[in-house]
């Protein structure tokens, strides 16, 4: 979910009028004054938004499909005179297929260090599951964001409690409340949500925090030098009624540790920098207690990208490259069952996308909508890297297939050109640039490449810059 700043058209009617009327009364603080701390006001919404400087819900970006017309208030309130009413749109709503946004403290932010939880009351017109409720999201840094995901509403008012993992972090927080809702749980039927009495509270009834990263598993990732962010950071907390609640929390609440900072470093916000080849394990702790789960990074060091293509784009038909515009592609790995074992683990390093094949026996690229007319082209180029020592029997067999007059795979009119690359063309641990002269006389409707290892020990390779060109 992207979080672009967008002010919705919705305002709270009464509050809006008051705001306008009071503008003239605003006074600046004298320059002599020193504020000891930021305001500690607990209320976010009672009958109107409380002390949010202005009265807007900031919606998710309509460009991403967020609907800004579903925000309203209603006098069906849990307490007092008004509650927030949200109309969750169906996915095909022309005004946007989901709804969500934040209440932002548009002042300097609040000091929430004395509270332990965000609480609110909510109900639904049906027992829908709401994607996200939370706080700490300000659409700027989201440094200490916390969310409760997939909350199933009742049609009666229920109080929801979202614990603050570490209140000491919220000395100046602007993200007062966030929600996001779609119709995944209602079979695409729209519904309404009422939300009331949103406030921060000091509750001592929840405890027994269990923290995990990577969803609690010991994960291993093979990467090149670069950056990635720790994910799956969660806390499960036991509430006063004995039930457990699991929240997703920003990595910033945790302390991270790298077993080898010369290989992998991690900062306070959970951003990982892989700086050298080697292996290191990231672990985390919360209030001195080790979190469940870890991330072992096996770094291959600096990734050296394939040589940048130099052919003039006018003379190129590109199948896969970041340098040229690619033709329409059906797939880079069709996973042809039952005999194919090849899996894809394509990756991106500094904006350079690379195809990566593992458990390789054979794999295909297809571009049949439409097929490629390569009649004017003279060569097929590709860069191949086998990320290991080159096996003595290394082979990569490439088949270029033209679909023939029926413009479809099969039918007896297909023609192929088959090229076998061996140790003389392939390289271990570095890119080999392959240029294949096209000998296929029928090549107006090329629709497929097939790559095979010919029974050799080449079981893993990377591929980049696959294109036809005219010399």
């Amino acid at each position, binding site marked *: 979910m992207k979080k672009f700043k967008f002010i919705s058209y919705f305002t709270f009617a009464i509050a809006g009028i008051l705001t306008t009327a009071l503008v003239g009364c605003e006074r600046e603080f004298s320059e002599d004054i020193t504020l000891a701390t930021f305001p500690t006001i607990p209320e976010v919404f009672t009958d109107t938004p409380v002390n949010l400087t202005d009265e807007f819900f900031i919606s998710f970006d309509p460009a991403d499909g967020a609907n800004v017309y579903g925000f309203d208030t209603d006098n069906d309130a849990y307490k007092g005179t008004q509650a927030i009413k949200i109309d969750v749109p169906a996915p095909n709503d022309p005004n946007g297929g989901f709804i969500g946004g934040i209440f932002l403290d548009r002042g300097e932010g609040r000091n929430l260090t004395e509270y332990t939880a965000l609480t609110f009351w909510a109900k639904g017109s049906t027992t829908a599951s709401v994607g996200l409720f939370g706080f700490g999201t300000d659409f700027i840094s989201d440094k200490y964001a916390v969310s409760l995901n997939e909350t199933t509403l009742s049609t009666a008012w229920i109080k929801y409690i979202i614990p603050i993992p570490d209140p000491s972090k919220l000395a100046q927080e602007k993200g007062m409340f966030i929600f996001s809702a779609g119709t995944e749980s209602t079979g695409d039927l729209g519904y309404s949500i009422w939300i009331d009495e949103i406030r921060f509270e000091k*509750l*001592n*009834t929840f*405890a027994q925090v*269990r923290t995990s990263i990577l969803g609690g598993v010991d994960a291993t990732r093979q990467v090149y030098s670069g950056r990635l962010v720790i994910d799956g950071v969660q806390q499960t907390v*036991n509430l006063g009624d004995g039930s457990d609640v699991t929240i997703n929390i920003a990595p910033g609440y945790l302390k991270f540790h790298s077993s080898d900072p010369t290989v992998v470093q991690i900062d306070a916000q959970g951003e990982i920098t892989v700086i050298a080849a080697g292996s290191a394990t990231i672990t985390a702790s919360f209030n001195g207690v080790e979190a469940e789960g870890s991330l072992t990074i096996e770094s291959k060091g600096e990734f050296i990208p394939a040589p940048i293509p130099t052919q003039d784009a006018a003379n190129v038909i590109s199948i896969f490259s970041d340098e040229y515009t690619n033709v329409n592609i059906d797939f880079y790995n069709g996973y042809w069952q039952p005999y194919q074992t090849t899996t894809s683990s394509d990756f991106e390093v500094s904006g350079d996308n690379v195809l990566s094949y593992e458990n390789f026996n054979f794999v295909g690229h297809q571009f049949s909508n439409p097929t490629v007319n390569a009649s004017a082209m003279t060569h097929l180029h590709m860069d191949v890297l086998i990320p290991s020592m080159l096996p003595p029997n290394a082979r990569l067999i490439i088949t270029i297939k033209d679909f023939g007059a029926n413009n479809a795979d099969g039918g007896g009119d297909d023609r192929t050109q088959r090229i076998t690359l061996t140790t003389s063309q392939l390289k271990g641990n570095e890119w080999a640039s392959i240029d294949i002269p096209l000998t296929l006389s029928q090549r107006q409707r090329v629709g497929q490449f097939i790559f095979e290892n010919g029974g050799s020990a080449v079981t893993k390779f990377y591929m980049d810059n696959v294109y036809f060109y005219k010399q």
Partner: protein
Amino acid sequence: MADQLLLNFTWITCISINNKQKKDNMNFKNRTQTNRFQLFSLLGAIVVLSVLFTSCDIDETQVVTNFTTITMQDEFHTAGAPNSDIWSLEIGNGIDGWGNKELQYYTDRTENVVVVDSMLKITAVKEDYEGSPYTSARLITKGKFEQKYGRFEARIKLPWGQGIWPAFWLLGSNFDTVSWPQCGEIDIMEFKGQEPTIISGSLHGPGYSAASSITKSFELTNNRFDTGFHIFGIEWGEDYINYYVDDVLYNQITPEDADGQWVFDQPFFIILNLAVGGGYVGAPNNFTVFPQEMLVDYVRVYAAQ
């Protein structure tokens, strides 16, 4: 009873002032005892006076039962196995899971029971042991310390989670001859791990046992029992048992409440245990965290002067 207890609350402030003045003139062995003394005399006063008075003026002619003489005290200052002069460890899984279909096997191993850091630590462990899926421990004072009447209290930090059942309770010393429930049972504190803010105090006797025992729950306000230590106690005299948590008296049971013979006029012994599963709490589930610890800071028993 509700009205009476309301009265008690208004009384606490007044009486504690009186006791504070009294305390200043007395010498005590140590500070904790001083504090406890202050509390128990306060509660003693409440028992007798609560119904009779509506102002803060204490009638000096009233007889106040103060349980002020320490008769048993374990502060758990000596690391290692529990003091065998006071405690015996019951081993095994009892008959029918100690009569409650409890799931644990009690041992005397350090893994399950040990005195460390001035605390008695009873640990429930999830492990296959002698055919049981969990292990834990149960300490009794039977034959070593038994007393009729008095103030029995312990300061405990409780464990938590579905199916966890710690208790601090008393059984009649004639248990072996007359059997249960004729012997009587005073449950000073029972706790269901899945209800972390609530404890119960109960009384079982002939005609009012198990599901028909006399029981009352006490819920903490904006707090829970597994995050800190709390004091659980009774004041037991002739024809009454008062239940309290920390400085709050929450129930009084008298023979009038008992639908059968009042059997609480003979010596009882103490039990501290941490059960897993059983009819009272239900079995643990996948979310129950193990091991679970019950930490006991002290057990103290007082008799009347």
